[in-house]
């Protein structure tokens, strides 16, 4: 079975693609508990990332996924959901 997990690198790439925010993955890894707002990412941008992931993995994420406040909270939610459905 293939384990699916969204990495910090992938989140950084999605932030660039969906929200136009350039962030160094290494720096993002160091600041996983910083609020998305400080990275310039608003809830609409996070909603776009949620949509990308839902299309990529062909499965829905929890309805409040875009309300996550930090990268760590978001990655945990996403990866728990993907694992649960694997």
């Amino acid at each position: 079975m293939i384990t699916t997990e969204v990495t910090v690198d992938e989140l950084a790439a999605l932030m660039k693609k969906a929200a136009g925010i350039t962030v160094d993955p290494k720096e993002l890894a160091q600041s996983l508990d910083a609020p998305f707002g400080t990275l310039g990412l608003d809830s609409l941008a996070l909603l776009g990332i949620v949509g990308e992931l839902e299309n990529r993995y062909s499965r829905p994420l929890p309805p409040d996924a875009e309300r996550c406040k930090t990268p760590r909270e978001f990655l945990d939610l996403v990866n728990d959901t993907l694992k649960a459905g694997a």
Partner: protein
Amino acid sequence: MSTQRPRRAVVTGIGVIAPNGLRADAYWKSVREGLGVLDRITREGCEHLPLRVAGEVRAFDAADLIEERFLVQTDRFSHFAMAATVLALDDAGLGAVDPEEAYDIGVVTAAGSGGGEFGQRELQKLWGQGSRFVGPYQSIAWFYAASTGQISIRGGFKGPCGVVASDEAGGLDAIAHAARGVRRGTAAMVVGAAEAPLAPYSMVCQLAYPELSTVEDPDRAYRPFTKGACGFVPAEGGAMLVVEDERRARDRGAAVRAVVAGHAATFTGASQWERSREGLAHAIRGALAEADCAPEEIDVVFADALGVPAADRAEALAIADALGAHGTRVPVTAPKTGIGRAYCGAPLLDTAAAVLAMEHGQIPPTPNVFDICHDLDVVTSNARPAELRTALILSRGLMGSNAALVVRRGGDLAR
């Protein structure tokens, strides 16, 4: 000196994104020279459409002035407006907003069609791939209000904000709205309009306009006030202004470029060009009255110049109706024949040109227009030197709005 003098709204900054120049100085140079830049439309996906000639903004890279995170969530029309805003604020000497002042600065834009290119892209995803592939920014990017919102968010302007959706003439209505905001107590307003109508969906919408010129020769496609008048040519781009309380501008040492002196607007119905005579004349009289300006004080008229014979006739008669004998003597110009009509952006570009013309003492010519067939003194071929204290700017929309704006030269103000 009385301290009870009403607040005056003055122009302190001009930002232009136009087919003939990016920045106000480049725009003025082209306008003064009468440079015509109408050309074949080259934007992607438009080549096969029966509208061939327009004024395209080329060599524009929004990323030079605007952060990528604002660009991905907005349409080209907002890119123009945000870039023009940066230029206008820079011109006005207003940098980053002091948080203490955030509520003293507002934003108002006019929009004729919103973000058609962005909307088309997302709608194609909707019908091509499904609703899950439509990005969330579709919810904001294609609305008329998008530019006002993004300018406000990006600049941190928390004062009165608004959007005027009243057809092409709404560009002048927006300036009036901003001036009223300043007179009522707001320190400064960022105001203007920019449009991006040269994208496939937007162009198909325009094809239904009977006033649209589909002539393929750029030099002959848009020739108002002549026997060759065959409709108008669209353009993209526009201008943003900083309109500010005169006292505040003087206190901070900013140059007072012009005074927004008077405005009025009327409505006479879609494509009712004969009736626009009465509506436009009424708007002119209203603008003069608000400006406390006699017809003879008008030194130059920036005409709407639609290029449809009945509309041109109506405008010439409206000028005569409202200005009397002065109407046949006052110099009339329409620099937009060199760049096309950028819908709501057009009267903003004309207002920018009027302020620059007053500053330079030159009336710019009307490109591609020579053989005038109306009783108007249209400035053709070359710029005409003139002492300009007061300018009248006219605008009409295809859906029936008419507006007039009177601006006075800034340097003439008593301190």
